[in-house]
């Protein structure tokens, strides 16, 4: 037994990936598992899921021309349902041109400024939320696969460090709740694994759709840490780490959360 354990540790030291694999929850559980049966029912039925209002709005925005070039998303990309299938499951990723980490929101705004020559949409605006929801919806059920090697590696390392670093007046790290206290109660909520596959999601507390960064900001407030602006590089890095941490969980966005 002791011998086997020794080999395990040795292999772990050799390849960074194996060490990292140990940091994932043994059984990844989607965020919806920690919700009330009512909220779960709301999420699973598209007719009662309020997030579908944003998805439909996003569908219509996809074909709406905008900016100096008068192009719509559809002018370049084509049909939303076919071309965006599985795309959100690969985000965030490192943009080849700018060498920066980009999530879906960032990609939409990059397309707007570069190809449509339109002003970027503000984070949490109804338009951006709608487009993000509509695009992410096309990946529902797809397994999330984000790249963490090569150009993405420094971002991944940064995200992991953030996840494990104590912060705020409460001096808590993400990992302490979302790994160590999963399933226990935090006031009226059940502490989840912090899986992000249901985002953007409709949060009942907000009575609105919200982005993942809005959700992370809530956590920052919760531990009384510095609340970073939407789209901050640190949040993006954390988004990448969290996307990887979900392992083979399927995408379930748009989710319904308490």
């Amino acid at each position: 037994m002791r011998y086997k354990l020794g080999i395990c540790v040795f292999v772990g030291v050799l390849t960074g990936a194996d060490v990292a694999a140990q940091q994932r929850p043994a059984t990844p559980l989607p965020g919806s598992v920690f919700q009330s049966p009512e909220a779960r029912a709301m999420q699973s039925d598209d007719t009662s899921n309020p997030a579908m209002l944003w998805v439909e709005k996003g569908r219509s925005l996809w074909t709406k021309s905008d900016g100096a070039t008068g192009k719509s998303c559809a002018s370049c990309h084509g049909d939303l349902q076919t071309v965006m299938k599985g795309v959100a499951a690969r985000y965030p990723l490192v943009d080849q041109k700018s060498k920066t980490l980009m999530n879906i929101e960032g990609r939409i705004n990059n397309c707007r400024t570069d190809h449509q020559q339109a002003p970027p949409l503000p984070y949490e605006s109804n338009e951006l939320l709608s487009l993000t929801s509509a695009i992410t919806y096309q990946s529902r059920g797809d397994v999330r696969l984000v790249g963490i090697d090569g150009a993405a590696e420094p971002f991944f390392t940064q995200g992991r460090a953030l996840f494990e670093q104590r912060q705020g007046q409460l001096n808590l790290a993400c990992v302490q709740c979302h790994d160590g206290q999963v399933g226990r109660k935090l006031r009226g909520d059940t502490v989840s694994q912090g899986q992000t596959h249901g985002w953007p999601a409709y949060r009942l507390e907000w009575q609105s759709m919200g982005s993942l960064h809005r959700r992370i900001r809530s956590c920052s407030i919760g531990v009384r840490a510095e609340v970073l602006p939407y789209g901050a590089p640190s949040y993006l890095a954390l988004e990448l780490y969290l996307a990887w941490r979900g392992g083979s969980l399927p995408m379930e966005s748009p989710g319904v959360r308490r």
Partner: protein
Amino acid sequence: MAQLPVRIILPSTAKKGDIIEIKTLIQHAMETGYRRDDVGKPIPRDIITTFAVTYGGVEVFKADFNQGVAANPYVAFTTIATESGELVFTWLDERGAATIERRKVTVS
């Protein structure tokens, strides 16, 4: 008020005498009037006050909403499929602006 985003789900065909379920969802903030903004100014009340549905010209469902109703009101109800015809869904906000949607149902 412009036409608000709406989702209506109902069967397009039904047998005469069947009970059909109709589900509706409308995007609306349902601002209570009790909240204040970042600088302490009250946010004026802005809610949908009534929701009514007619089927072939006959009112089959009506609801009065108040400020206790959550944002993006979801309403599901049933009616009996009597004849082929049009259902007209009307949401009225307190400023008198209406969002109207029409759906056809074929009864055999």
